């Protein structure tokens, strides 16, 4: 008999979340039955190729939905509260940016060029928290310290800043309301190697010093390993593997995860990286069975049926090879 440690309740519990878009060609199933749990002070990386639905997952969580949503369903429990029944105004006033914020993809290029950065970073506090200008600006000063920006940057305009500094400003904007969860969508993909490493250092330090959780959305496997506690790999709208970082990076289970890890170029290894044959299926016309089957070197008869999610030693894998009755 073993003693199971009292589990902390998860910060975020997502069950069967779906987000489909209506397009002229039909319904695009960008997020299609995604489930996962995120613990307090945990960093989960969502990996995937472009068009796999990872950015849509972020939008579905923060409810930043475009107009052409065809279908939005599932359960999102956050800090013990079910978010799905909340009305838009409630969600805006109590969740978005108050408890859950986001660094959007390429947001550093979306800063308002004619407004000083301190005013832009103070905006969430002034609008969502209704703080006075003085109080908000004082908090902005603290947040700048947190992300490693000198106080003299406060008075500058975005065009006076380098890419790395602007990315820190955008990060400060997400942190200024001190939310317990920040979603980061490709926070380093437009930056140089040294700047990327510096931003990852900032994220690591903030995660160590504060009780904060991150969901980091990226296609860059090497950079994601800088912060990941857990990795969720998305393919064609679904999470195909969700594993602790050590397992995922060193012994991935899903055949797609294995191919992906072999395709990562490594500076310090003599072997040439491999390529993944084929292209992902269109989200408009998904195959009936396993969505990776067409590209999979380990395909067998059962792959014509859609695989459920199997639990294997702390990981979840959506692949018939991990069915309890075994594979051929």
């Amino acid at each position, binding site marked *: 008999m073993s003693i199971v440690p009292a589990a902390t309740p998860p910060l975020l519990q997502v069950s069967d979340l779906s987000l489909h878009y209506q397009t002229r060609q039909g319904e695009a199933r960008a997020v299609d039955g995604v489930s996962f749990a995120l613990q307090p002070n945990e960093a989960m990386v969502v990996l995937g*190729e472009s068009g796999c639905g990872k950015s849509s997952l972020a939008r579905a969580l923060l409810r930043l939905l475009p107009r052409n949503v065809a279908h939005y369903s599932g359960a999102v429990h956050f800090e013990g509260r079910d978010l799905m029944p909340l009305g838009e105004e409630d969600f805006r006033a109590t969740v978005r940016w108050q408890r859950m914020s986001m660094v959007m993809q390429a947001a550093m290029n979306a800063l308002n060029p004619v407004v000083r950065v301190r005013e832009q970073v103070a905006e969430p506090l002034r609008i969502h928290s209704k703080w006075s200008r003085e109080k908000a600006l004082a908090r902005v000063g603290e947040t700048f310290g947190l992300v490693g920006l000198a106080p003299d940057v406060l008075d500058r305009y975005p065009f006076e800043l380098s890419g790395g*500094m602007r990315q820190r400003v955008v990060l400060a904007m997400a942190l200024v309301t001190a939310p317990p969860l920040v979603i980061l969508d490709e926070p380093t993909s437009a930056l140089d190697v*040294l700047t*990327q490493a510096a931003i*990852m250092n900032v994220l*690591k330090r903030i995660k160590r010093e504060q009780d904060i959780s991150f969901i980091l959305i990226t*296609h860059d496997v090497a950079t994601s390993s800088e*912060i*990941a506690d857990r990795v969720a790999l998305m393919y064609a709208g679904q999470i195909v593997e969700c594993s602790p970082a050590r397992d995922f990076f060193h012994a991935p289970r899903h055949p797609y995860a294995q191919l992906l890890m072999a395709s990562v170029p490594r500076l310090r290894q003599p072997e*040439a990286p491999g390529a993944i044959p084929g292209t992902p299926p269109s989200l408009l016309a998904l195959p009936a069975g396993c969505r990776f089957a067409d590209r999979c070197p380990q395909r067998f008869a059962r792959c014509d049926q859609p695989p459920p999610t199997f639990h294997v030693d702390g990981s979840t894998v959506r692949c018939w090879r991990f069915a309890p009755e075994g594979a051929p």
Partner: protein
Amino acid sequence: MTQSPPRTPLLEAEDLHTWFELRRFGFVRIGHVRAVDGVDFALYPGESAAFVGESGCGKSTLARTLLGLHPPTRGQVRIEGHPLPPRMGRKARLEHCARIGFVQQDPYGALPPFMSIRQILSEPLRIHGTTSRNERFARIDKALTEVNLRPAADFLPKFPHMLSGGQQQRVVIARALLLAPALLIADEPVSMLDASVRVEVLRLLRSVQRERQLSLAFITHDLSTVRHFADRIFVMYAGKIVESAPVDALLDTPHHPYTRALIDAIADVDADNALSERAIPAGEPPSLVHPPTGCRFHPRCPEFMAGICDVQVPTMQPVAHQHAAACHLYDKPKEP
């Protein structure tokens, strides 16, 4: 005793400077952006060289200068020993264009959306005087097959938006190869593509380069892919080349402090990465309008020697076989 004759470099840059004038109100000259500021290198036939550096280090301007799109402010570009004239007439430009193929960074921007693949690939042949339709189509067919877009006939009537990013970049490569150039310049050829497609496109470039014995100048900011796709690396910082070496030597025993910092900043996938922070030189790349005196890396350099690095401009010094670095750490001690 016979010695093999010294090979002529296919492409040479000598003391190359490309500066852009800065003006206020359109006519008051207030300085220069020194995007390329004294670059020397030689690229031999059949050699693949990677130019690595951060954004703003002048690597794309260097590519454009080599292509003849920017006239050099000072210095010279030589192709097969012939200097590139500062102003090219139509004939000289056509000859120059046929010798150099260019692979752009962004395939979505490099392919006109209103032209079919057949039209896109016909254009260079038509301009360069292939008048026979059949001959044009035969060459296009061959080029598409060479970049693994098979069967070529399926792709010809398509428009760029109907292709995936990887396929679009293959079309760009096919276009660069059509006129049978001796040199290919690729400016960040895979940075806009997905990780899994990148390796395929790089492999294709490498195999085409080897088969055709092309010289390839490959501009990139990503050191982690160069080992398998280049023979030689030039590291650029603030408009200058700071280190040059064969790939393995540069990655395994980097000499310049900037190269070391660049290599240290790159993570190889490992769950342990999350446990510690990376050591990164403080600061940002310098302004190219007012670059630092002496060595341009000195304000960020962990090996900074006051009175030397901030005063004297370092020159390239040999540090090992075929390996040179521009750093005062490797200056020869002066004879007493």
